[in-house]
């Protein structure tokens, strides 16, 4: 019986105008979006390679450790083709210097500012915005139209359990929708294989892609069940359509965007600019304290038989203690900011998960290596790189400031490029990515179950008259 119902829904949908609109949109948007993404990725890979080669060329011969700019370049994530996520907003170049500390730059955003301004038509956009809208257009009249044309009465005049009708509608609609979606994905993957952008048949890539597609399908299915639920809660197609459009706007444009603002109100955190100013102030105060302490030490060492040696003996514990104090105070401010910011981000992320789009975005970007966690991980890696550079090269032959005498550098030794730490950033393994996204996948499953349960309860009580 279920087969008959699914077949009927399939046939009914396949013969409808909306199926052809969906087919057209899928076949146009998905392959073109992925093709453009693949071209952009290839161009960025080329830039990355050139940047790396230029950096290596500039570091030939012997180098002055205090003037070296240790540079780290981040390779673009291959799966950004499917879900751009934060790939264009997070830095792709890190420069560690003795005087200016760690500098982070983002050339991708500068290369294509319009892509940042409008966003890219990647799979995440197509699924999240276009497919969800099409899913609502497919399902708003799933039940109401049957009621309006009297076929629901006629069907239920038979020994037909109501839940079968509902399941038939869900699977029938989903299968109809999957035809253009899978067809478009196959075209897109063929383009990737032919252009050689990605080793798509590599087992790890296939696994990652399979998980990305599973997440996408769960999201689409959630909107289908939502559509069927709303249709079942209404008796007129027009009312169902308006209700669904309102919900679509709320879930796609409302909740994810408002969540960030709400989190800022609920858990306010001072700005990074304020933190930087506070850090500068601590450094300034410590410098002043150091200048005073070292000035006293200098006065005490003047007139002694081994003036400079005595000064160095007095200086070392002062500098060490004040450096520790500076590090402690700065770390406290930074850790406090980091924790509060992380809590705010977590809250915003959880609020955005009230919409299936939140889960889709987090799930797909985590799998693509372009998510929030990846940005945090990258920043941690950049700081680690900077610390390594400070430890291994920037501090060679460095001595602190002596009040009134300016900086004091003693030349240590020349170094070679081999001694400069390398920035290595590897994409997370599939297992690690899955660990980050399993919650969102589970949430999408729950959305499906919740909406279906809503539709089921409503349909059991549905007045077919």
């Amino acid at each position, binding site marked *: 019986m279920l087969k*008959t119902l699914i077949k009927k829904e399939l046939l*009914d949908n396949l013969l409808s105008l909306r199926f052809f609109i969906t087919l057209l949109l899928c076949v146009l948007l998905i392959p073109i979006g992925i093709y453009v993404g693949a071209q952009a990725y290839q161009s960025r890979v080329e830039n990355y390679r050139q940047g790396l080669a230029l950096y290596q060329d500039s570091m030939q011969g012997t180098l002055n450790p205090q003037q070296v700019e240790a540079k780290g370049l981040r390779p673009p994530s291959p799966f950004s083709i499917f879900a751009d996520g934060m790939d264009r907003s997070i830095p792709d170049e890190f420069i560690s210097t003795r005087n200016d500390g760690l500098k982070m730059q983002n050339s991708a955003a500068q290369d294509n500012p319009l892509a940042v301004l409008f966003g890219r038509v990647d799979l995440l956009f197509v699924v999240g915005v276009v497919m969800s809208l099409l899913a609502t257009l497919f399902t708003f009249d799933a039940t109401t139209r049957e009621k309006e044309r009297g076929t629901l009465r006629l069907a239920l*005049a038979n020994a037909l359990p109501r839940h079968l009708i509902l399941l038939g509608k869900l699977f029938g609609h989903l299968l109809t929708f999957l035809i253009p979606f899978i067809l478009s994905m196959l075209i897109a993957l063929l383009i990737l294989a032919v252009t050689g952008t990605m080793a798509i048949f590599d087992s790890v890539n296939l696994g990652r892609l399979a998980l990305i597609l599973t997440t996408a399908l769960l999201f689409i299915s959630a909107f289908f069940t939502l559509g069927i639920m709303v249709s079942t809660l209404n008796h007129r197609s027009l009312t169902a359509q308006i209700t669904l459009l309102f919900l679509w706007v709320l879930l796609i444009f409302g909740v994810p965007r408002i969540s960030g603002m709400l989190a800022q109100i609920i858990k306010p955190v001072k700005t990074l600019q304020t933190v930087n100013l506070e850090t500068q102030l601590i450094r300034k105060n410590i410098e002043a304290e150091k200048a005073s302490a070292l000035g006293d030490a200098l006065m005490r060492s003047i007139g002694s038989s081994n003036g400079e040696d005595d000064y160095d003996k007095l200086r070392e514990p002062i500098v060490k203690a004040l450096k520790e104090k500076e590090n402690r105070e700065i770390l406290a401010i930074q850790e406090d900011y980091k924790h509060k910011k992380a809590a705010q981000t977590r809250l915003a992320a959880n609020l955005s998960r009230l919409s299936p789009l939140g889960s889709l975005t987090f799930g797909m970007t985590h799998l693509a290596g372009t998510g929030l966690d990846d940005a945090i991980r990258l920043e941690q890696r950049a700081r680690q790189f900077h610390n390594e550079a400070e430890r291994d090269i920037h501090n060679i032959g460095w001595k602190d400031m002596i009040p009134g005498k300016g900086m004091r550098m003693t030349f240590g030794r020349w170094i070679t490029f081999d001694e400069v730490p390398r920035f290595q950033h590897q994409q997370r393994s599939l297992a690690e990515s899955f660990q980050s996204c399993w919650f969102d996948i589970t949430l999408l499953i729950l959305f499906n179950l919740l909406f279906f349960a809503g539709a089921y309860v409503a349909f059991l009580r549905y007045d077919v008259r």
Partner: protein
Amino acid sequence: MLQAKDLTKRYEDGHLALDHINFEVKAGEIFCLLGANGAGKTTTINLFLNFIDPTDGQALINEIDSSKAPLEAKKHIAYVSENVMLYGNFTARQNLDFFAKLGGKPNLSKEDYYAVMRQVGLQEKAFEAKLKTFSKGMRQKIGIAIAIIKDAENILLDEPTSGLDPKAAAEFQKLLLQLKKEGKAIFMSTHDIFRAKAVADRVGIMKEGRLVMLRTREQFLEENLETLYLDYMQEVAA
């Protein structure tokens, strides 16, 4: 056999739509229920199909209570609605095929469908035509074909001749008598007093949820059904 035993329906807003209705339709019998709009005819059908639950009493299909075992009861009943819309993008045969399968006839051939469509008087060229091109009369014929193909012992017809032209209505009448001959218990709610007079074995008149008159064929032919009906309608108006 169809039986209404003290069948009562009071809606949540307090409106009493059916007030202790009693009747039965035996195999090989046509029972016509006449009455003004809102008298309770469609409510009676809705109760037999378990689209709503009775407040009191029972709607029995082959002695199965339709509110207690709806799925079992519905195996023994076919239904033709007033406005058969069906699936416009499907052909007549595809519509028939879908509802036949829902009615528990999964293995019928194309020829079986064609035979039923011939039986209801549909032209051959319409068999594989899309339903959206059909007139109301043609759609009604498909609705009846759906009921016939289910081959249930009982048939519920809700205003089946409304909107049909005289020729189609006459064909429908013939079909009804043929189904009766096959031993079906037929319940028809209608405004069409002339059609009722032509086919009914028994006639009931409903007024404000009550079955105010019940006559056998011999009785209503003797008393003149039109006069009886008009008298009752006037009483309603008064």
